[in-house]
């Protein structure tokens, strides 16, 4: 019996064909020591793919063990609601499905990993599971339930990780920001790391600031956000605790004065970056950091999305960063 079914681990969905159909691919057989194959279909409805795969492979493909859903960037820009709804209706599919946005040619990346000993789908899943558990702010990991909750919540918007497929590597690019269910922006690199800090006190293992030639390590940020009652301004205070892990070899901290100067330089830099990030979000009228959630008070009416958008786009933001860093060497 077990030889007759194949539980697949992921689906990869791409749009963009002229006849409006979507392309859905998967890798078979997972987890066994055989040469693997990529199955691809062009379908107009997702479940047509679910069924169509059975007709082109000798085993029955079961979608109950699906753990990853790779969506192409172009498809995500058009809206994910129909895709998500299909996935939601199947009672076998767990809500812990990881959603990922891909750029580049994902099929080509898969084609380079079809060896017998390569279980790329399984390793990708373990990667997401590892980073979900560890929460060290290295990559954003979002599962279906979290995405749906952020989607439905009145004043917040979801986000998803973005990976780029280049040749035989899958590289983490950043976080995709959504407006309702359409992808509107992407933040990469340093901005991404900083936004990880802002989103609920995450722990970031290394925060590399190449402009200042310094690396901060084991960062724990405590964020306090305060909105004024008329929603005209927001003040954010970030307490960052960590260590200086690496310093450019030419600069050395020899005494307290230099240390304070460096700290202040880093503080200004972070403040500017956070401000820039938030302005970008304001400009797009999205709120992935769930700042709108602060407006809900116990004894007052919750505000509507339109009101919040209006206030959010014109809000003044004050950012204050306070660093408490341990230096690399002993400071006099």
């Amino acid at each position, binding site marked *: 019996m077990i030889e007759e079914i194949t539980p697949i681990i992921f689906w990869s969905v791409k749009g963009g064909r002229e006849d409006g159909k979507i392309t859905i691919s998967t890798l078979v057989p997972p987890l066994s020591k055989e040469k693997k194959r990529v199955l691809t279909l062009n379908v107009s409805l997702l479940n047509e793919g679910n069924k169509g795969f059975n007709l082109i492979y000798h085993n029955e493909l079961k979608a109950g063990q699906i753990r990853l859903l790779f969506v192409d960037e172009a498809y995500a820009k058009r809206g994910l609601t129909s895709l998500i709804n299909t996935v939601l209706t199947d*009672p076998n599919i767990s809500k812990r499905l990881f959603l990922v946005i891909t750029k580049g040619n994902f099929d080509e990346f898969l084609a380079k990993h079809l060896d017998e000993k390569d279980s790329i789908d399984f390793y990708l899943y373990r990667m997401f599971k590892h980073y979900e558990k560890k929460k060290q702010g290295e990559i954003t990991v979002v599962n279906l339930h979290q995405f749906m909750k952020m989607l439905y919540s009145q004043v917040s918007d979801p986000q998803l990780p973005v990976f780029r497929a280049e040749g035989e590597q899958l590289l983490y690019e950043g976080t995709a920001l959504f407006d309702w269910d359409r992808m509107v922006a992407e933040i990469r690199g340093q901005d991404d790391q900083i936004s990880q800090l802002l989103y609920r006190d995450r722990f970031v293992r290394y925060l590399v600031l190449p402009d200042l030639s310094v690396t901060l390590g084991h960062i724990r940020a405590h964020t306090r956000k305060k909105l004024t009652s008329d929603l005209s301004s927001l003040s954010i205070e970030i307490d960052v605790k960590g260590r200086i892990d690496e310093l450019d070899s030419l600069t050395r901290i020899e005494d307290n004065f230099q240390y304070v100067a460096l700290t202040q330089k880093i503080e200004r830099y972070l403040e500017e970056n956070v401000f820039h990030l938030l302005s970008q979000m304001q400009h797009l009228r999205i709120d992935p950091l769930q700042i709108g959630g602060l407006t*809900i008070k116990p*004894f007052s009416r919750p505000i509507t999305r339109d009101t919040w958008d209006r206030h959010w786009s014109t809000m003044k933001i004050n950012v204050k960063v306070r660093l408490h860093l341990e230096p690399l060497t002993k400071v006099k």
Partner: protein
Amino acid sequence: MRAISLFRKTSQQESGFYALFLTNRLQMLHYMIVMPTVLVQPYMLWVIVVVGILSQFCLYILSKWFASPYPAQGCQGFEKLFGKTGIKILALVSLPFLMLKISFISVSYADIMQHFVFPSMDREWHIVFPIILSCYLALFGMENMVRFVTIVIIGIIWILFLYIPFFLLPSNSIHDLYPLVPIGPEPFAWKSLLLVFSSLSGPEYLIAISYWLSPQRKMLKYLTIANAISVGEYLFFSIASLLFYGSNYLPTIKYPSVEMGRYLQSPIFERVDIILISAYMFSIIYLLALFALMVYGASRLLGKAKKGTSRLGLIVSGCAMVTCTLSISKWFWEPGIEQTFWLELQMWAGSSSYLLLPLLVWFAMKRKARTTS
């Protein structure tokens, strides 16, 4: 109430805890089906508390019945209170309420089973098998059934601990539980009061079993504790689902408690929700068996049965339950208008029986006291 085989009573020493556990299980019948989807706004949590207080009032009246000398005398006590025709009328009226409750519970849980556990099996089989099992359980007699409730509680109570991780998720925010008072744009749903009240109904059937729960002066204490535990459980699950889903996403989920069970991960089992549903069916089968015994007892009261109870009689009443439930499920249970019709009917029936039956019994006792004194 009867003296032979199924309905006999042998020992004199009972504990109030049986009443406690029974009340709690009777009150927790509905939580998986209807709640917390109906209580989507956070201020509805107060509804649970308020209705719990109202239910406490009904239990207070019920405890007056237990404190009186009538329950200890079994059938004779009822006869003294209501007269022979009175008993027949009571039995006749209570049969439809019982059948409605049985059918509603069976079909709803069969729905859940079919949706999550065995999607390719017909819903009718999901109704027939539990009722067969409950008839088997009922064959052990009312006294053993009352004692069995402790096993049921032990088999169910661990489910509560499974839901504790939902309070500890890092993505929770207290803002999901605001606003605390209903100032929102939607009007307040008065139906939810009725729904919670009918979900807390069920202890009035203890009147029928009171012969086996030895009446004590302090029954009120046990009933209060059971009521508090039920209200606490409802609050627990409602808060967990509000924190997990948020009040905007919650109305779109059909069975939140089971879906939350699916979100739990364990390295051993893949589908924790199947285990949850199966464990919960334990409680349902037990209560169906209790109701089967009550149906049999009521139908014996209606007839002129002076001969002893027989197993065949119980099986016949089991078959009657199956037929009634199957016919409802097959022809009258389309999703949409028909299903909400049954839900509303059950709401009204449950609430009215919970409110009126203890009051009726109390009035009868008062009238008796006045005529004898």
